[in-house]
């Protein structure tokens, strides 16, 4: 065990958990409660960044917590992808906390304490997922994430929210119980362990049929990645308040799904095995279909958050595709895309929230001309949109280029074509939102005024500006991130 590394892991888990308890304890005092949230997010970011550096230095933190059954461990071990995911989630938690404070206060939402507690709890789960050393541990925290976010999805508490919550829970837990868990058990049986091993745990341990079945089980089982036809929960979950959609359905939850698929591909199957499995090809077709269909559906949605949700469905399928490309290069691209899309999509969701809290508008058609009064928000929206679309100078361009290159490099034409088509569609359903708000044709004037006196609350705007800046900054630092991720694509000799 490396010195201090176990402490870091412990801290990464304990900080949000402790925060959850503490927030619950001080729930009566909103100021203290929210200060705690922010402090916890900063603390967590510091922890994850130090872990990140350790991993970069080739000294990954390791910790074994428990051994529930013989041969099954709840253990943690950082590797580049997980470290990146942890840093991303914790940093965006901080930003999102800022946003939440503005939003929840601005909307005078009920049950705010439960909201913050569950959020902290969800971050605990995300940390567990990011740091898991084996599929078993990962599954545990994956489920914890589902359950801890259920109260957030049903936050509104009305019938629609409960219905969405049911869909959310049924799809996610259903898939994980019926597909993911059997898959993991299968892996355990085939390989005698579920530990993530660079180059692939299953390499040389399964035949093609078993490999196919396991791959299908695991990829579809990670329904948080919203691969069609298990995508329905994501649009449904949009009944949640904007901060929830922002962090969970742009960053934590959906990225957990994508992360699982990437990690499974890199460390359970390994690119050699993936290349040999026909199921990977079938899944690439499914992913390509998801990319295109989701983009088409997004075009028809007037409700902004729904549109963003469908866009997320498509973008997640990018990562899935990346993970399944018969070349390790896709993994780095997928990891990068995971990070970049997180920044972009959280920006978009926070913009949607800011608009909603300031004006009550949630439909695209109600936002014409709003950019005149909320220029920063819509400029950031444009930045996020262009980042999702993959236009420079936003980071999305790099990950998309890498993905397309990887697809071309492996002669996976269908994936490349789907990505290209969906980029164009993405531009069509995202860019006009901002353009019509910022540069409205005459007569398209702002359809509704502010329902709050001073527009979007300051923290809200600050939060989304930070992430929008992140989209640009990542354009410049994509190389560093990719270099950091490079080890995950390394093959076993």
């Amino acid at each position, binding site marked *: 065990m490396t010195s201090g590394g176990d402490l870091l892991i412990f801290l990464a888990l304990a900080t949000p958990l402790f925060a959850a308890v503490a927030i619950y304890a001080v729930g009566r005092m909103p100021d203290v409660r929210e200060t705690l949230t922010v402090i916890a997010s900063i603390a967590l970011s510091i922890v994850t960044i130090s872990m990140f550096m350790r991993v970069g230095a080739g000294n990954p933190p390791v910790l074994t917590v428990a051994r529930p059954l013989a041969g099954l461990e709840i253990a943690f071990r950082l590797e580049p992808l997980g470290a990146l995911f942890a840093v991303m989630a914790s940093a965006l938690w901080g930003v999102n906390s800022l946003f939440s404070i503005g939003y929840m206060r601005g909307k005078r939402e009920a049950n705010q304490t439960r909201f913050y507690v569950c959020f902290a709890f969800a971050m605990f789960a995300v940390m567990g997922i990011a740091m898991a050393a084996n599929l078993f541990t990962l599954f545990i925290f994956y489920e914890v994430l589902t359950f801890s976010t259920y109260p957030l999805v049903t936050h509104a508490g009305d019938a629609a929210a409960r219905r969405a919550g049911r869909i959310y829970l049924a799809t996610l837990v259903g898939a994980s119980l019926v597909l993911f868990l059997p898959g993991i058990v299968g892996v355990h049986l085939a390989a005698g362990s579920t530990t993530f091993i660079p180059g692939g745990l299953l390499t040389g341990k399964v035949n093609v049929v078993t490999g196919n079945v396991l791959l299908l089980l695991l990829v579809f089982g990670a329904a948080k990645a919203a691969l069609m036809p298990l995508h329905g929960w994501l649009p449904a979950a949009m009944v949640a308040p904007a901060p929830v959609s922002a962090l969970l359905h742009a960053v934590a939850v959906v990225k957990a799904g994508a992360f699982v698929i990437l990690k499974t591909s890199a460390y359970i199957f390994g690119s050699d095995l993936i290349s040999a499995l026909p199921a990977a090809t079938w899944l690439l077709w499914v992913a390509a279909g998801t990319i295109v269909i989701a983009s088409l559906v997004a075009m028809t949605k007037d409700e902004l958050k729904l549109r963003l949700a469908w866009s997320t469905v498509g973008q997640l399928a990018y990562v899935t595709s990346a993970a399944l490309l018969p070349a390790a290069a896709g993994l780095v691209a997928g990891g990068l895309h995971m990070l970049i899309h997180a920044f972009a999509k959280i920006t978009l969701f926070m913009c949607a929230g800011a608009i909603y809290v300031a004006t009550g508008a949630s439909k695209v058609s109600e936002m014409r001309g709003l950019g005149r009064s909320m220029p920063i928000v819509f400029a950031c929206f444009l930045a996020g949109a262009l980042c999702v679309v993959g236009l420079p100078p936003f980071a999305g*361009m790099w990950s998309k280029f890498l993905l397309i290159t990887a697809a071309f490099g492996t002669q996976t034409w269908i994936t490349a074509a789907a990505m*290209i088509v969906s980029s164009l569609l993405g*531009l069509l359903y995202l860019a006009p939102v901002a*353009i019509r708000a910022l*540069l409205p*044709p005459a007569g*398209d004037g702002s359809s509704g005024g502010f329902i709050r006196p001073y527009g979007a609350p300051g923290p809200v705007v600050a939060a989304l500006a930070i992430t929008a800046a992140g989209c640009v900054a990542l354009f410049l630092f994509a*190389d560093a991130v990719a270099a950091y991720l490079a080890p995950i694509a390394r093959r076993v000799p």
Partner: protein
Amino acid sequence: MTVERLLDLGAAINPGFHLIIAALLAAVAKDTFTRAVALIGGPALALLVMLYPPVAGVEVSREMFLGFQLSLYRPDSLSLIFGLGFVLAAALGGVYSLHRRDRMQDAAGLVYAGSALGAIFAGDLITLVIFAEVATVASALLVFAARTGPAYHAGLRFLTIQFAAGLLLTAGAALYGLEKGTFLIADLGGLWNGLLVGIVDPASAGGMLIFAGVGIKAAFPLVHNWLTDSYPNTTETGAVVLSPYTTTMAVYLLARFFAGYDPLIWIGAAMTVYPVFFAVMENDLRKVLAYSTNNQIGFMVCAVGIGSTLSINGAAAHAVAHIVFKGLLFMTMGAIKLRVGTTKASELGGLHRTMPWTTLACLVGSVSISALPFFAGYTSKTMIMTAAESGPGMLIVWLMLLFASAGVLEHSGIKIPFMAFFSHDSGKRPEEAPFNMLLAMGLSAGLCLVIGIYPGWFYALLPFPDQALEFLAQDLVSTAHIIQQLQLLVFAVLAFMILWRLKLYPAERPGVIIDIEWLWRKGAPEAGPALAKPMRAGARILAGLASIVIGRMQMAARQVFASDGLVSRKVPLSATAILALCILGLVMLVSLFQ
């Protein structure tokens, strides 16, 4: 740190960045002076960097990013001449826009110029793609900036097709780079007459994609409508800022990648010819200029396709000249748009009375585009015509170009100034254009003359300066060429006058000329819902069926499983006992008769 050192440092950076930095300044500039510094100083700085020190054919920077070898800055004589045109256009556009307090447009314009500049100085495919994409966004913003309904929709169409082109370019670049194992332009192909031209193999998959992308940006026939659709819908300055870059950049790319690719000859020739008809019939004068742009680009495309040193020189020269005189024409139309509010020929006429300087500038532009000797157009177009004469089997092409030249004269040379400033008096008496506009027009007009009268320095800047200077010495001012051109002009004027007198010339009527763009303008918005409707209906039917099925299943399940349902209903004890007997019998059956 000495000034030289600073310059060294600045010169190591792709000049496009200087413009983009200037754009940042423009975006926050509040007063006119700062704006002027950004709008004019930026291009000036870029020009300085481009010329200092003259490092043609050398990659100034080369680095690794994401595992790709990138070269952000690789100037050579081909890119330098195009860059010169861009910088000039940026500066002139800057001057022209000074009256208008629109930081968004200023910034977008500078970014547009900067990224176009960056693209032509890019030393690798990826950098090129990035700059091209930035240019796409910036240019679209310029269209949207008009803030009118038509502009919004035109902008969307523009953005879509430009982005589609960008995607094709991106995909092509990725594929081609993978095929070749390098993205560096310097490594893609060999030198041809000392210059990297025609380095992409158009028969490869990646090459085809690049060709398609560049083709859209060059407004090849059938994909040209983004151009005629968007330019007329911009603000008065928008068209001026829009006109120089995208198509010219495409010409540069064609020359760099596909020079000597035969199909380009025919594509170019076709491009020169058919816009003539539309231009002649079109009522909106800025749209006429857009068609005219299309037509002029056709000359360049054709020249690139011919692929001789002369033709490439001609294409490059014509590109720059076209930037200047088309810019000038758009400026004059912009002035009218500003003062009158429209550029529809049917609502104009007789404006020379109150806008004499603008009229004059327009005339200079007209004669330049008509390639009257000693004006810019002549200097450049002659090279193309000469190159087209020489090849075997080029007669038809040459005749097409000749026809197009006459056509240019018809619509741009005569129709534009005539309809706008003379013709029948519309009774409108607008104010003369603001000073900054006049200044920009004057500078442009001057440039037209300078190029036309003193072409030597200009020719020295061309991609193949030796051949260019040779052409200058032997052919440019040869009697044959001048006479031929004058004949053409005289006959064209004559034809126009006769047609006009006989009222056979298409009258300036309000209306919309139906072009392929109709498919875009009307078709796409119609087709979307038209396609979406059955899809949505299908989805609704499916959803309905699903809900019915699910509902039925739920109901059935309820009937079976609910607390008073079939299996949960309380059954009499005797029945349970019988059930136990049944199971007993079953177990005995399977045990006894195994």
